[in-house]
């Protein structure tokens, strides 16, 4: 789950990390009022859950509150990478001496948290990482021991941070690790962490990703979810615990298991088709879940055929068949459906589906071929 900049910074602040004075606004009038409170000179920052806001013109400096209002009007009317801007963050403008990159994230290979830091922070950090990887410092943290002050000092040394900032930086690093740990973040990023002209360390921007699997113990963060960036079908899917991603093709897919779902897409493509979605019904899918999955697939008018590829293990084919029948009863789809059931209770499942008018397949290749053909006919 992604958090907005203003949400991330609120959490940072709660853990003692200095952030600029500022507040979020949903209207130009609010933006003006906040700018007035902050003394006029502010940064107006679009709050959208994609990167590259700055380059898209979604972050602007206002010299006074009138300008802030104008810029807010302009930015609140924008769409950035297809996402509407619903809120802007109005932050006091800072006079900046240096921009640092500082983040804590999961290192999946090392199986532990890692600090990533660079003296060359700011919007071009990805380019730095690509072209000058030696300018990126990585230091691992033992998850049982946690962050230690000497680790922060080693990072400060490695990014040539002037000695006068070591004490503040160490404290900030300890606090950011607390943010990462206590929020079950998979990323807690400050970019840029700035040294201001009046010699302070301030988290000018903030980004957090939260581990979806840990949201059960993060009720406050769960409340912050902004579904603006998600397609309605994806929101619906999440409600049922389905992994669903809408794509551009015309063959709907319902598969159990992420690997097999990706593979089914691969094989559809291999035989000249285009998948309309990625959909993993998960392990041990109930008939309710399967029915919901089918409804979601069918809301996409592009879908000309559906491929059901279920290899029963923890999932039982008879449960899936029940779900399919239930959904068909409700939605009464007109498009051809190719079904392949193998594994746990496949026999029972196939028997249940005998009454329904479906195309059956033995192998995955066969199923993919048949669904590609069906979709072509359906056009």
């Amino acid at each position, binding site marked *: 789950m992604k958090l907005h900049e203003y949400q991330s910074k609120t959490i940072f602040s709660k853990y003692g990390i200095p952030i600029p004075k500022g507040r979020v606004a949903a209207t130009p009038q609010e933006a003006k009022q906040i700018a007035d409170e902050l003394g006029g000179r502010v940064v107006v920052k679009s709050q959208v859950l994609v990167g590259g806001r700055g380059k898209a013109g979604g972050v602007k400096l206002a010299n006074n509150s009138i300008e802030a209002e104008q810029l807010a009007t302009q930015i609140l009317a924008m769409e950035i990478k297809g996402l509407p801007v619903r809120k802007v963050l109005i932050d006091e403008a800072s006079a900046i001496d240096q921009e640092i990159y500082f983040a804590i994230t*999961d290192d*999946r*290979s090392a*199986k*532990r*948290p890692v600090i990533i830091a660079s003296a060359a922070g700011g919007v071009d950090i*990805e380019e730095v*990482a*690509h072209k000058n990887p030696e300018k990126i410092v990585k230091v691992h943290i*033992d*998850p*049982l021991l946690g962050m230690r002050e000497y680790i922060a000092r080693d990072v400060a040394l490695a990014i040539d941070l002037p000695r006068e900032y070591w004490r503040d930086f160490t404290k900030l690093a300890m606090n950011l690790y607390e943010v990462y*740990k206590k929020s*079950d973040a*998979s990323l807690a990023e400050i970019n840029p962490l700035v040294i201001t002209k009046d010699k302070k360390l301030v988290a000018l921007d903030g980004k957090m990703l939260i*581990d979806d*699997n*840990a949201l*059960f*113990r993060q009720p406050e963060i769960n409340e912050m979810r902004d579904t603006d960036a998600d397609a309605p079908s994806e929101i619906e899917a999440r409600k049922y615990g389905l*992994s669903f*991603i809408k*794509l551009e093709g015309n063959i709907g897919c319902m*598969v*159990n*298991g*992420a*690997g*097999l*779902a*990706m*593979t089914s*897409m*691969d*094989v559809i*493509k*291999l035989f000249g088709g285009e*998948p309309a979605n*990625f959909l*993993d019904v*998960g*392990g*041990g899918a109930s008939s309710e879940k399967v029915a919901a999955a089918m409804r979601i697939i069918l809301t996409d008018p592009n879908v000309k055929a559906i491929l059901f590829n279920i*290899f*029963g*293990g*923890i*999932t039982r084919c008879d449960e899936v068949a029940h779900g399919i029948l239930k959904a068909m009863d409700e939605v009464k789809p007109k498009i051809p459906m190719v079904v392949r059931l*193998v*594994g*746990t209770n496949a026999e029972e499942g196939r028997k249940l589906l005998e009454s329904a008018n479906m195309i059956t397949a033995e*192998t*995955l*290749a066969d199923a993919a071929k048949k669904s590609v053909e069906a979709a072509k006919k359906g056009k």
Partner: protein
Amino acid sequence: MSVLVDKNTRLLVQGITGHEGLFHTTQMAAYSDIVVGGITPGKGGEWVLDGKLPVFDSVKQAKESTDANASIIFVPARFAPDAILEAADAGIPLIICITEGVAVQDMMRVRSYLDQKKVRLIGPNCPGLLTPGEAKVGIIPGNIAIPGNVGVVSRSGTLTYEVLYAMKNLGMGASTCVGIGGDPVNGTNFTDVLEMFENDTKTEKVIMIGEIGGSEEERAADYIRTKMTKPVASFIAGQTAPPGKRMGHAGAIIEGGAGTAADKIKALEAAGVKVAKHPEEIPTLF
């Protein structure tokens, strides 16, 4: 010989009285006689499977009573980290965690703790192990594979079944199939299992089933190139997945171009591995 589990495995089931636990215990016990008991705190003293399997309150107690040498976990995700730790503390040398949806930071802590102990963890979020004809430890349907000389290792669940099933349809059998699970932080990786297969006298060929994300396949390629003598065939799922989209719980995120299917296939082919275009093609590549 085979890898990790065989007919001498003495298996405990953590979460044995739960819906999934009981269903798969029934399946495992029907496959062969390896399940010796289970654990559900608060239900110690009960029996399941018509009085054939005892239920204990703790792994320690179960281990003392049954002399188990492996434990499989079917508890809900929020309890799985402690279930793994409990089994490790009770001295179980092989732990298989089927549960999916375990929080990443929990697993990082668990992994750091297990690294201090002589404990092998398979999973979480994995289908478990199958040594055809001897031991079914997990949720891989028993009837889709036959005994043989091909070691199978996979990050995926159901995709593995596809491959086993395709193998069986060609009359090709497996020595052991190891599902290492798709989570970013897990207990056992490709290289660990490749090494076991390389050293296993019953295994003559190996099939490795990978997917996009991470860099375990690249490391495995490195191991195959430098250390392995047995032939390896492979398939990488997600060859057509759009970049930057998250493909479900498998943690298959494409980050900055790394971990793409193309990268992985290139690394594997450079190591002499034949990579299939679709899973049913793999068994034909040897």
